[in-house]
């Protein structure tokens, strides 16, 4: 009996907890970028998903190049070593698009909706660039050791019938996300430049009166956002696989995460990322086996016990998004300024 409960717990960890933590970290990093752009530049950046694909593209190219030179990181994926290529590419993309597109609208003091439409244009351009450079197909670019904990070994070690497996990419995602977020929060809370970004986001006019240079704030913001874009994109691609269209689809859960947490609020973006990830996974998971372990034999379920097919997983973030917009438009943690 007690083994049944342990087995049920292992199932939940294996299929919900571990993937949720990894996917949540990826969404959180994406939502952080969206929320920073919203807080400082005051618009919803629809090009965010495709920019992630752009950063990942250059990481993949870098990975291939490093592999051709015979350079690897042993058990860790080579892509980690190639990540700086992706970060630089994503930052350059952000800065160039800002110079060519957004700067003009800032000088015109355009309304946020104009920025949003402009960002949709940037999205299509980036989208085309990515397909032009690397093609629309699916790519797996992770190498090195695949698992940190293998299901079969776990079963043997603990004598359970269910096994827990943790992929290397899942562990890496969590570690890198935590480091990146810690660095970001330290920067925003402790450094003079970070505080000036928050001040500018809070009250633009007063920031000007205090001598804060808006161009510098915008520049620094794109540097950070570009880095977050590439990191989020690469981690997602390593964990799942890289396909440009999937990155476009990530826009919805990432925006949902940013808005659920309170857009403009970085802590909210992280919280929102995990809420969306766990809801998506928990709602689309088939609980049949889990219930078999826990329920008495006569109640054993016949169906899959799945609330929603995985094909509809985007509906989950959409429903949460709608609910939040109706009942708590500012998000769980009051949003709109970092």
């Amino acid at each position: 009996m007690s083994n049944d409960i342990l087995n049920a717990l292992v199932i939940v960890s294996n299929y919900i907890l571990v993937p949720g933590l990894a996917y949540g970290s990826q969404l959180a990093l994406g939502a952080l970028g969206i929320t920073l752009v919203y807080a400082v530049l005051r618009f919803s950046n629809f090009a965010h998903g495709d920019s992630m694909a752009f950063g990942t593209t250059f990481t993949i190219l870098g990975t291939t190049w490093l592999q051709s030179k015979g350079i690897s990181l042993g058990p860790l994926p080579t892509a980690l070593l190639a990540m700086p290529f992706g970060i630089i590419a994503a930052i350059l993309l952000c800065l160039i698009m800002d110079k060519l597109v957004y700067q003009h609208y800032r000088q015109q003091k355009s309304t946020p909706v104009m920025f949003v439409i402009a960002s949709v244009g940037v999205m299509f351009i980036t989208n085309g660039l990515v397909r032009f450079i690397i093609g629309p197909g699916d790519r797996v670019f992770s190498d090195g050791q695949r698992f940190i904990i293998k299901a079969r070994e776990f079963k043997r070690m603990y004598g359970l019938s269910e096994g827990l497996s943790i992929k290397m990419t899942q562990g890496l995602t969590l570690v890198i996300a935590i480091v990146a977020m810690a660095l970001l929060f330290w920067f925003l809370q402790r450094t003079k430049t970070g505080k000036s970004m928050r001040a500018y986001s809070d009250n633009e006019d007063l920031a000007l009166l205090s001598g804060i240079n808006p161009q510098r704030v915008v520049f620094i913001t794109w540097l950070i956002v570009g880095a977050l874009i590439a990191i989020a994109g690469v981690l997602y691609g390593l964990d799942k696989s890289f396909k440009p269209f999937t990155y476009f689809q990530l826009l919805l859960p990432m925006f949902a995460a940013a808005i659920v947490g309170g857009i403009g609020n970085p802590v909210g973006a992280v919280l929102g990322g995990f809420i969306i990830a766990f809801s998506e996974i928990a709602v689309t998971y088939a609980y049949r086996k889990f219930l078999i372990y826990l329920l008495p034999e006569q109640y054993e379920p016949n169906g899959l016990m799945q609330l929603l097919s995985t094909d509809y997983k985007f509906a989950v973030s959409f429903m949460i998004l709608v609910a939040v917009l109706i009942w708590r438009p500012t998000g769980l943690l009051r949003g709109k300024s970092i």
Partner: protein
Amino acid sequence: MSLLKADAMIAGYGKTRILNECSIAVDRGEIAVIVGPNGAGKSTAMKAIFGMLPLEAGSITLDGKNIEKLSPQDRVAQGMAFVPQTSNVFVSLSVEENLEMGGFLREDDINKTRDQIYSLFPILFEKRKQAAGELSGGQRQQVAVGRALMTEPTLLMLDEPTAGVSPLVMDELFDRIIEVRNTGIAVLMVEQNAKQALEIADTGYVLVSGENRFTDTGEALLADAEVRQTFLGG
């Protein structure tokens, strides 16, 4: 020779002219107060002096230097500080961070100035870790003035610092403003509470339709029968 001398300013929004040859001056260690009926151009005069509104004609000198071509940010660097009437604190930043942002342009150590501001406004020291948005109206105004003082300005400009605070808090704020003046800073402010403001004013300007109607010491204006009758409600 006054520290700030704004001479015959003409300015407005689009075709509407608000200021008609309005002149304002204030010297170090002095409080100058601009009063007048609604729509007299008091706040517009402040904006024009701070460079948030371009002049059509007239001149502004600070310490003998012409500044009318400078942007507001450059005027901050020249020693002017401005406290707007509304949204004058960073609500999501702590009190301490507000002060730090006030001294953003300074390369030297700002801790000394910060400590001076804490001794001027002791309540800010108590609340230094709290977000400015969580403070009461009067405390927020102190944060706003404190933020402006962080640049160690020679001229402090206040746009209706007592708007929306209780009479008790108003008296306290005025006391603090006198202390600021006593450190040798020139203070220029616009006030709705004309009577109380003129009581602490070294110079008072009564504006009507963007023109100087009366200019005198605060005391003399308060004693003037016509000023009392027309602007101070008897």
